[in-house]
């Protein structure tokens, strides 16, 4: 099972996001960077799948040279290869991003005989929240696609299914994905033939923390680099601004045991009582 997981380098922000004076970017002078949480889960999911079925996980990112740090973070979690689509630091729109990712996927190919069997994404990037890159990549590659997945099972059909640890090459022919999510109280399940594109949401798993040996392996790993060409698109950012603030404070339900009825009503409202 060959899996490509696409991740994005985003600033780690606290309760308040600070914008640069020109209103074009988030001020990252004091922030670190991470991959979006959904994507961290995608990497975890991919690692678990390959641990079960064999094969390798490739992590790909499009971003500045420093985004290699995030690739290494993911390599430390068990991904095997890293691909950096290096930009000049400009923010890329979702159309150009998807096109560049599709081009990179085509380099290796999709499907049996060593191509990617599965392309995993986070449901949306933590910063721009565009919700569309995975779907556009799927269309560009002619693959089926589902998004917002919270539960994923990959099955390999025919002989050799479950033979973990093999090269995995070609082993995914006939493989399928059962992907599901909860939507407005209903479980929606999808059955897809692989290769396919799937975006996942936080909660699908609990991402592991990097081990020390993992971190050291990641440091030594070689990252493939490409420089795709920037393209503008129809949606253009003009200005970022912080919404007028309201300092949050809990609504006080009451004092002591007098508050119990209010608590019960609240739990009913949340739908956590049977």
């Amino acid at each position, binding site marked *: 099972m060959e899996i490509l997981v696409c991740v994005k380098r985003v600033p780690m922000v606290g309760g308040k996001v600070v914008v640069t004076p020109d209103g074009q970017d988030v001020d990252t002078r004091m922030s670190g960077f991470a991959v979006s949480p959904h994507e961290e889960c995608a990497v975890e999911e991919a690692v678990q799948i390959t641990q079960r079925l064999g094969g390798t996980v490739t992590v790909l990112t499009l971003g500045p040279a420093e985004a290699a740090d995030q690739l290494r973070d993911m390599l430390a979690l068990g991904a095997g290869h890293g691909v950096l689509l290096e930009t000049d630091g400009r923010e890329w729109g979702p159309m150009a991003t998807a096109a560049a990712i599709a081009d990179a996927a085509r380099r290796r190919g999709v499907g049996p005989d060593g191509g990617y069997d599965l392309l995993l994404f986070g449901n*949306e990037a933590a910063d721009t929240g565009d919700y*569309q890159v995975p779907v556009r990549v799927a269309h560009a590659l002619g693959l089926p696609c*589902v998004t917002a997945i919270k539960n994923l099972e990959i099955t390999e059909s025919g002989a050799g299914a479950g033979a973990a640890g093999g090269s995995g090459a070609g082993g995914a022919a006939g493989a399928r994905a059962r992907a599901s999510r909860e939507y407005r109280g209903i479980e*929606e399940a999808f059955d897809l033939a692989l290769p396919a594109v799937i975006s996942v949401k936080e909660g699908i798993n609990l991402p592991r923390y990097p081990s020390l040996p993992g971190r050291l392996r990641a440091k030594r790993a070689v990252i493939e680099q490409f420089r795709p060409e920037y393209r503008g698109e129809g949606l253009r950012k003009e200005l970022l*601004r912080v919404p007028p603030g309201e300092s949050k404070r809990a609504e006080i339900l009451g004092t002591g045991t007098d*508050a119990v009825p209010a608590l019960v009503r*609240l739990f009913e409202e949340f739908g956590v009582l049977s």
Partner: protein
Amino acid sequence: MTVLCLVERDGDGAADASLRALAFSRELAASSEASGTGGDPGYGEEPAGSNPPGAPGENVAAVVFGPAAEVPAGALAVAGVTDAYAVESDALTGYAPLAWARAIAELITASSATAVVAAATDHGNEVLAHLAAITDLPMAANCASAAHASDGRYRLVRHRWAGSLLEDAALDAPVALLTVAVDAVAATPAAVPAKVTVHAFRPDLTDGDLAVCATESAERAGGVSLATARVVVGGGRGVGSPAGFGALEELAGLLGGALGVSRVVTSQGWRPHKQQVGQTGTRISPELYLACGISGAIQHMAGCLSARHIVAVNTDPDAPIIARADYAVIGDLNQVIPALVTALRERAGLS
């Protein structure tokens, strides 16, 4: 000319998120009537005398998947919808994102749509993303407002960082594809209810369009592991002793949830380390996190901020948890929790 809005059904009516999307669509349509002023106050005056791109009198049409008979016409009328397209297809047995997008793509032409709007739900985002890919049009997700601008573009305000940041953006596209940040717009009724004309619409779908299709079931995935629990009852220093966790465990059991604790609790040896919630423990994302006697140290909060609702029980109204929780009870958890357990037991007995 039409603003076409995907309306998701909820029982016999329209989903609340879709009603919000309809209100948004109405504002967008109206902005083409206003002479040359954008809908967003953040943009100031537009150049005088310029021509709005949308033809005057742009209307709002709804796309509803299902038989024409099931279109929630009443709700649509209140929302100011003039035309409703009921997408009927024998092949469409359930939600199929690509097929839905294909149908809407056909409707853009049929309805002379200048914009397609959907709520930024899993369905709305997914369908519009497919539509964007099919049409090769840009798509703006999570919009808080949209308006025609004098230069022929759309002026948008989008949410970034889940609404922590606003983006003023320009969209240059023959047809605008927009999803609506659900909490950014209220589901207000139209000033004057409209008269809805329902059109049955049969899209031209291929097998490929239907390859990905949802099987729906009412089942919910269970499991009460801390990481995946729908309810987590948390206990901190305020619990006071190892014995104090009995009531919390009982409450967690009643709620079908799991017990989580703060770092100090494991450091004191009151509970095993595996129950620790926080930066260095388990990160949780339940529907409800009931934090009892937990001050709300930063490291702890880092592990539970993705909880949907946080309710705190704490003696100290100035504890940091109060600033991070949605609701709070000021009081001693060792009195509040047993009383809550009793109340929940009684309720279970009655129902």
